[in-house]
């Protein structure tokens, strides 16, 4: 293909990627080293607010931003180096906790507690999603042709549900005397409170995520199964390979590029775990890195937002994803370079 034709096709997409992916990333990157603060003054203010019958007036010292002649808040922006990263990571406290082998103290620092859960969540759901996805794909592939359509449709349903809605549904099924908690209580004959401690909430989150994402792995693997070379399978049968041997030595090697692909997508998605935290309102027990960024960005009643720490936390999340993806990306790169054409 001539270069001009190539550029004509690729140009618009490169431009949009620069505009909507690269530019915001650079903005957040720079923002994480900067801090913008209002210039404030302290003034005495008398505030009169209603009681039920009469007003009460109080005079207090109030800190408020200074407005410029256009009525905008005067702000200063400074370069602060790694200060925001230090505020998020709290390396001093973290190091003390690690040196004293005090796991509980380390988990009191939001970032490290969030990192612990995010990594655990990502690494536990990954094999489960791959395993269940493959199992469903094999089951459907071996099912009678007449029921395949309905089975595929039903298997895909969890993937179609919006994540937040799915998480809320699970919450309502289990919270308080939700129907599933009541059912479990009857079955086990004991009182259960699934939202009262961290490990039950984490179990529900793992269950929910696997339930939600396994259909995606299933669809990809099912498509891959249609292209398995039937001659190879038949010769394997003639050679006396068992069902397991055929899976192990023919089917899985054939599906390997797809497995890597699903693993890549799943790692990226689950490292950004967020809907579960919000849906289960679990922040007392469990938080994730993405939720931490969100929490920094949420304004409080007085309108304060921690933009600098949010930027730093977002950059750290990205760094984390890149580190997780490196082994898989290296493998893909090797396969790509080693390809015969």
């Amino acid at each position, binding site marked *: 293909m001539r270069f001009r034709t190539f550029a004509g096709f690729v140009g618009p997409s490169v431009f949009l990627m620069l505009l909507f992916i690269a530019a915001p990333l650079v903005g957040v990157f720079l923002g994480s080293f900067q801090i913008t603060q209002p210039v404030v003054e302290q003034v005495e203010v008398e505030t009169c607010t*209603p009681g039920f019958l009469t007003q009460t007036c109080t005079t207090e010292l109030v800190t408020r*931003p200074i407005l410029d002649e256009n009525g905008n808040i005067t702000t200063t922006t400074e370069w602060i180096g790694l200060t925001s990263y230090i505020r998020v990571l709290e390396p001093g406290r973290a190091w003390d906790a690690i040196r004293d082998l005090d796991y509980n103290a380390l988990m009191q620092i939001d970032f490290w507690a969030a990192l612990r859960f995010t990594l655990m969540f990502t690494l536990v759901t990954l094999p489960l999603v791959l395993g269940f996805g493959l199992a469903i794909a094999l089951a459907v592939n071996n099912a009678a042709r007449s029921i395949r359509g309905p089975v595929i449709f039903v298997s895909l349903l969890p993937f179609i549900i919006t994540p937040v809605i799915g998480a809320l549904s699970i919450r309502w099924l289990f919270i308080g005397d939700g129907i599933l908690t009541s059912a479990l209580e009857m079955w086990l004959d004991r009182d259960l409170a699934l939202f009262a401690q961290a490990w039950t909430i984490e179990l529900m989150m793992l269950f929910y995520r696997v339930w939600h994402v396994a259909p995606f792995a299933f669809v990809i693997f099912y498509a891959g199964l249609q292209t398995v070379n039937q001659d190879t399978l038949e010769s394997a049968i003639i050679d006396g390979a068992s069902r397991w041997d055929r899976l192990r030595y023919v089917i899985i090697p054939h599906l390997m590029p797809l497995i890597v692909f699903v693993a890549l997508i799943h790692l990226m998605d689950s490292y950004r775990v967020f809907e579960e935290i919000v849906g289960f309102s679990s922040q007392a027990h469990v938080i994730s890195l993405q939720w931490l960024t969100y929490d920094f960005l949420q304004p409080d009643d*007085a309108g304060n937002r921690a933009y600098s720490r949010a930027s730093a936390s977002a950059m750290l999340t990205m760094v984390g994803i890149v580190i997780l993806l490196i082994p898989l990306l290296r493998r893909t790169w090797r396969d790509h370079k080693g390809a015969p054409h």
Partner: protein
Amino acid sequence: MMIRRLALAGALSLIAGTATADCAFENETEVRILSAAFEAWNAVTEAMAECGNVSAELDQEFRTKQPSAFAANPSLYHVGGVSNGTITPLMNEGTIRPLDDLVAEYGQHLSPNQLIRINGEILAVAMMVNTQHLMYRADILEDLGIPVPATWEEVLAAAEVIREAGVVDYPLGATMRAGWNIAQDFNNMFLGFGGTFVNDDSTPNVNTEAGVRALEMMMRMTEYMDPEYLVSDSTYVQQQFQQGRIAMANLWASRAAAMNIEEESQVVGLVATAAAPTAMPGGAPATTLWWDGIVIAANISDENAENAFRVAMEGLDEEMVRANNDDAIWLVPGYQPTPLAEGAIATATAEPAPLSYPSTSQMGLMHTALGNELPAYFTGDVTAEEALAAAEAAYITAAQEAGLLD
């Protein structure tokens, strides 16, 4: 009131009315309103819509939207529904206008109690008060011969009797969901024990005896509560009451009317209200007072502002209150207190009286810090002092970032 519902659950309703019934004048210019989404705002915005050309947006995420929407020029909304908590960013950024002239011309019927004055200037017109106060199952307390508790010690003693009688699942309920709610419950108790959150130089002051005593009292309460209290918000506590699963709670006055909705409540007529209990003898009720009201944007023309104010006054008139008497503790003349309003009135008129929620930039940061750090105490990971020290540390970091501390 300030229930942080999820974005998706947050109700967003649009009322665009062209009818001109029951309005003193016909409104020709468009008036847009952004407010919180609860029953009282529904009543007020519907009364405003009778003037025509009114579009009201009732959104639980209003406090995220309001500051930026009002900072636009021209402002995206003419009228804002605020509380004493959410008016702070609008005041700080100067995006709402003084209302003295408009009140003088069109607000003669307002009671002086409704006019929110900051340094003498009227910046908002309040329509209702709200507070967290004691709600209890009158039938249960009567059956067991327990007098209505006036202090938290008495609440705990009553809870013990109720638990032994085994008449409900859990004697107590509380809005202790991690985040805004648990911090607010701590605020109530902390003020009840005479604490002050922040010193004049913006340094934190919660890791004190009052702070520890407040946390310890809250921990003693949890013994009588549903163990899932760290996910329980106002709506959840309201439902626990409605389903007859709890007997007492310190809950928002704006939730009281829901107890008597026959379609959803199994305890119609059985719930009564009383003043918020005190935390220590001779102290103020351990709660804060809140008001909700309207503000007018600064970045709109004077004619538009005048028009918007006239429409807003139509929404805050006696007629509206008479039609929606039970929806709130109205400050508007014509309000007839119902039996369920007794608790809020007793709280507001107590001697010494509880404070208004101290909305400042510092308090906003402190509220967030408390909401994030206190749950660790209730999960048993840290002691009360450690949790308060962590909250102070989180506050200091946030205050440094916001430029309030060096």
